[in-house]
């Protein structure tokens, strides 16, 4: 037997644990046998009721500092150094740690323990925020206990007009658990103020937006895509035009985090869709300083500037998803950012052939921005399942549909030149004899599948007039 009184013993238990109840006679035996034993109880300062009492750890501070995962846990220390620990009830383990033979002979030899209260969902981060090292670099904004944090956020101009979730340290810690990347990693300089955008700042804004930690990979990818110079975020947020970032998410993560690509896909009701898009807008507002009426000079804006994010329907293996068509690898996750605004409805319940449907859809597509504007705004075309069925029945896939839409939206210049059809607006009269495409061939139409299963509909999400500068302003796809 070791010289047990050179050692200190620490036992951590909770009443709401059958194994802790089971080991009470053993703890009582230890209390009589060893001089230094501390017993902490997580939920009842009167448990176990044995001579010498227990230490109340309902704050869970000691359980947190001791790193308790399971109760009961028995720890042996010498000086300030931990020598060994065991958890649950295991006679040989407890005998080994204590050096005392014959412990709990009336008990079964083994019984697993229960989870520590300090590791229950949401608890660990609260304890970390209260007792641990968190290392956040963002400054604290302090206010009175009587103030409402939600109103404080409004007063400081942090919100988009809707209430936010207060960014407390425990919530930020939980959000950061959604990524393996370091909180102080910089994603880039966020316009318009070109301030450093760290992962910590993104996490704070994700908390405010109401996001869950598992959305963080998508949120970070969206932020990185927005900061890609090809996206020209500064331009889209200071434009007079309607547009703002629209996020399309592809890959297995869309299913993992419960994103919506089906019914009401552009509407309300899905937390992931709503809060991922909102986070990007809050980051632009708070980190970049892009606020309406200041640098954001939109004449009308659009409701999607609160949030506009959705997943593509990838349930048909024969369909090539958007991100794959844009060069991402099979099985990868990706976000594609488009400079978009409101949804234009296209409802054709008559067409029964792929060619008819593409021709019909093109009549709507050529109206984007202005019927006579060409090679200007890019668009998202979202095909519903019922319209997709028409294409598929004729053996059409992505490339066939794209080819047809580009073909049918290419029109005679004579119809588009200034003055044609009595309308002053139009293109250069020199193009009167040419056939003029409506959209850039490489990225002018972002074709996706989405929407509910019933309804012969297609949605067009129009784009920013800045798209006329095709080499400077493009949709951006970011694989992650």
């Amino acid at each position: 037997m070791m010289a047990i009184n050179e050692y200190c013993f620490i036992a951590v238990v909770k009443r709401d644990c059958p194994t802790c109840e089971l080991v009470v006679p053993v703890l009582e035996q230890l209390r009589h046998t060893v001089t230094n034993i501390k017993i902490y109880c997580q939920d009842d300062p009167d448990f176990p009721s044995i001579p010498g009492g227990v230490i109340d750890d309902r704050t869970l501070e000691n359980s947190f500092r001791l790193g308790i995962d399971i109760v009961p846990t028995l720890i042996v220390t010498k000086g300030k150094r931990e020598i060994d620990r065991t958890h649950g009830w295991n006679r040989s383990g407890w005998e080994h740690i204590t050096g005392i033979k014959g412990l709990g002979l009336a008990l079964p030899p083994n019984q697993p323990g229960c989870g520590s209260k300090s590791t229950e969902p949401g608890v660990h981060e609260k304890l970390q925020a209260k007792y641990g090292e968190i290392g956040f670099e963002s400054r604290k904004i302090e206010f009175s206990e009587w103030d409402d944090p939600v109103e404080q956020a409004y007063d400081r101009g942090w919100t988009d007009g809707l209430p936010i979730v207060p960014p407390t340290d425990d919530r930020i810690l939980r959000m950061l658990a959604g990524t393996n990347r370091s909180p102080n990693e910089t994603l880039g300089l966020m316009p318009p103020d070109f301030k450093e955008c760290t992962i910590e700042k993104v996490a704070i804004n994700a908390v405010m937006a109401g996001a869950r930690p598992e959305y963080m990979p998508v949120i970070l990818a969206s932020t990185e895509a927005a900061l890609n110079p090809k996206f020209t975020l500064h331009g889209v947020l200071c434009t007079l035009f309607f547009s703002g970032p629209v996020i399309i998410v592809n890959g297995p993560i869309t299913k993992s985090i419960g994103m919506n690509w089906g019914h009401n896909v552009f509407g309300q009701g899905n937390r992931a869709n709503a809060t991922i898009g909102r986070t990007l807008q809050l980051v632009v507002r708070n980190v970049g300083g892009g606020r309406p009426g200041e640098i954001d000079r939109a004449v009308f804006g659009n409701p999607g500037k609160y949030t506009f994010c959705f997943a593509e329907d990838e349930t048909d293996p024969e369909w090539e998803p958007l991100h794959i068509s844009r060069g991402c690898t099979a099985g990868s996750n990706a976000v594609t950012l488009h400079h978009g605004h409101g949804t234009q409805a296209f409802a054709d319940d008559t067409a029964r052939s792929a060619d008819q449907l593409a021709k019909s859809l093109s009549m709507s597509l050529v109206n984007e921005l202005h019927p006579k504007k060409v090679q200007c705004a890019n668009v998202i075309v979202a095909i519903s399942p019922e319209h997709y069925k028409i294409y598929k029945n004729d053996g059409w896939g992505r490339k066939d549909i794209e080819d047809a839409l580009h073909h049918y939206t290419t029109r005679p210049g004579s119809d588009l030149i200034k003055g044609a059809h009595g309308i002053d607006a139009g293109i250069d009269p020199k193009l009167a004899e040419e056939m003029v495409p409506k959209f850039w061939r490489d990225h002018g139409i972002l074709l996706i599948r989405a929407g509910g299963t019933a309804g012969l509909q297609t949605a067009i999400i129009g784009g920013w007039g800045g798209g006329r500068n095709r080499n400077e302003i493009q949709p951006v796809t970011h694989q992650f």
Partner: protein
Amino acid sequence: MHKTQFLRDPTSEASTTLRKPTCFPENIEKRTIALLDIAKERSDEFLDHIESKFTEKGIKVRRYRKASNSKNADLLTIQSIVREADIVVESLAD
């Protein structure tokens, strides 16, 4: 103030943590000024004096009064001021 709550700053921290006061107006000639009596003793005397000074200069003035100096103005009073006036002068002391 006993500070017991804090949030982390979501901004780029380019400005002070305190809320910025609204700037003083550059001119008041074409504005309507609300004179708010907080219902403390002799507030009205002070505001009467201020009103006469503004009126001499041809500046439009409207008078408002809180029910009690110990409570916030009621919502209808606040909304009336927002709707009808551009600038508020509040009498704070007796």
